């Protein structure tokens, strides 16, 4: 199973009728079992690209091939839960085939046990994100898409959730694509880091990380990060802008 992406151009038309390029040219491929991380500045077209890859937007130039009947698990940038359904119902509605044992395990890892019967309106952003994650994993996806799952959470919470995501990703072989603008998250979670330019998005670098995820401690992470910075252009001040 393999995802092949070759988007040559994607434009949006503004209300005033003028066109602006959002994606300039992006091509890469991901195999099952691989975690690809797209890193790029805010507004460079990452979410737009994910919508194309998930088949939600067909209005682009280029080609995307993903396994025909691939089940998709999508964690959108906003949680996108059904406000009128409980946490548990939200997950079950998206994943009607998931059994109780599977759900229990998921709720356990994501620390949602106490919130099964709450409505989304009663949850903090961190909890709502966890529900969105539970929903995406509950469908046992072949293709998992995560759009900035750690953004706007405080540092401690983000670190915890990052570890939870790492655990879940480790537990299942699938194509995983994660979007972030945080290099630290990218290096801790990814097998490959794809750096994107500001809008219109182009690939600046496509860098594999060879150290297995489980053995990456703080020291290794810092080393890999420094290594990536060096390999891009050796100028850390420029990279800080990413």
């Amino acid at each position, binding site marked *: 199973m393999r995802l092949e992406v070759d988007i040559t151009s994607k434009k949006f038309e503004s209300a005033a009728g003028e066109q602006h390029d959002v994606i300039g040219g992006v091509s890469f491929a991901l195999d099952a079992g691989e975690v690809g991380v797209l890193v790029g500045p805010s507004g460079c077209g990452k979410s737009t690209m994910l919508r194309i890859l998930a088949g939600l937007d067909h209005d682009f130039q280029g080609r995307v091939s993903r396994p025909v009947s691939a089940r998709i698990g*999508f964690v959108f940038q906003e949680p996108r839960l059904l406000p009128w359904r409980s946490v548990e119902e939200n997950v079950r509605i*998206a994943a009607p085939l998931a059994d109780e044992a599977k759900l229990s395990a998921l709720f356990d890892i994501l620390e949602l046990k106490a919130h099964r019967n709450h409505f989304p309106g009663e949850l903090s952003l961190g909890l709502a994100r966890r529900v969105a994650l539970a929903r995406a994993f509950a469908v046992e996806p072949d293709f998992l898409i995560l759009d900035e799952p750690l953004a706007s959470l405080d540092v401690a919470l983000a670190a915890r959730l990052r570890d939870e995501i790492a655990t879940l990703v480790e537990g299942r072989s699938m194509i995983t694509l994660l979007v972030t603008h945080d290099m630290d998250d990218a290096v801790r979670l990814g097998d490959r880091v794809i750096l994107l330019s500001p809008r219109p998005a182009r690939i600046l670098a496509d860098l594999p990380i060879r150290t297995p995820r489980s053995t990456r401690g703080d020291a290794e992470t810092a080393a890999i990060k420094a290594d990536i910075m060096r390999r891009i252009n050796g100028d850390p001040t420029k990279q800080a802008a990413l």
Partner: protein
Amino acid sequence: MPRLLSFALFLAVWWIGSLFAGDVKLPSPPAVLTVMIAEARSGDLFFHLGATLARVTLAFTLAMTLGAAIGYLMGRVRLADRLGDPWLILLLNLPALVVIVLAYIWAGLTEVAAIAAIAINKLPTAVVTLREGARALDAALDEMATVFAMPPWSKLRHVVLPQLSPYIAAAARSGLSLVWKIVLVAELLGRPNGVGFEIGVAFQLFDIPLLLAYSLSFAAVVLVIETLLVQPFEARLSRWRPRAA
């Protein structure tokens, strides 16, 4: 308690009014109650109330179902909106009386004609309200349903209907009060039974106690249905909303 008080006030005003206007023009509450009991004893009251309620139920269900479907379609499909809009404006502004009379002329003095005429009167407001609801559907949730490959029935039940429910409730509420008003006119003009028919008879005989007995029984039924059926239903729909303090 405040409800009881306002009912007592109503009775008091009525009674005092009847003292001033005289028993012929405005019979006192006990006089009307006597007629009401007599009509109930003979079974007539329940027969006519039942006939009217049956018509209301049928016409209301028909108009809500059709109205919801058409409104949803017009809210989602541009072409449908363009095609339907002139008809909608026409129906919205057509007087109820015209629809009823034409229905009786074209379809005869039949039950079908009566129910269709009532439904047609309610239809356009249901369409307009549901069209508004369909236009306001959240595109983000729609994408979510698509990505997770939710089957159509599940999407309708869990994603679409909950968003439409405030609009459905609004259409039902305004529609029901419209139907209550129109059903009596339709019965008066072309049906041999129902509250509207009885009121017509009472009018011709100038039997004011009978007229009031039927009108008030009808009003009581409306009140009971609104408080026991419509209001709890609305409360259930908004169960998930965080309660206001």
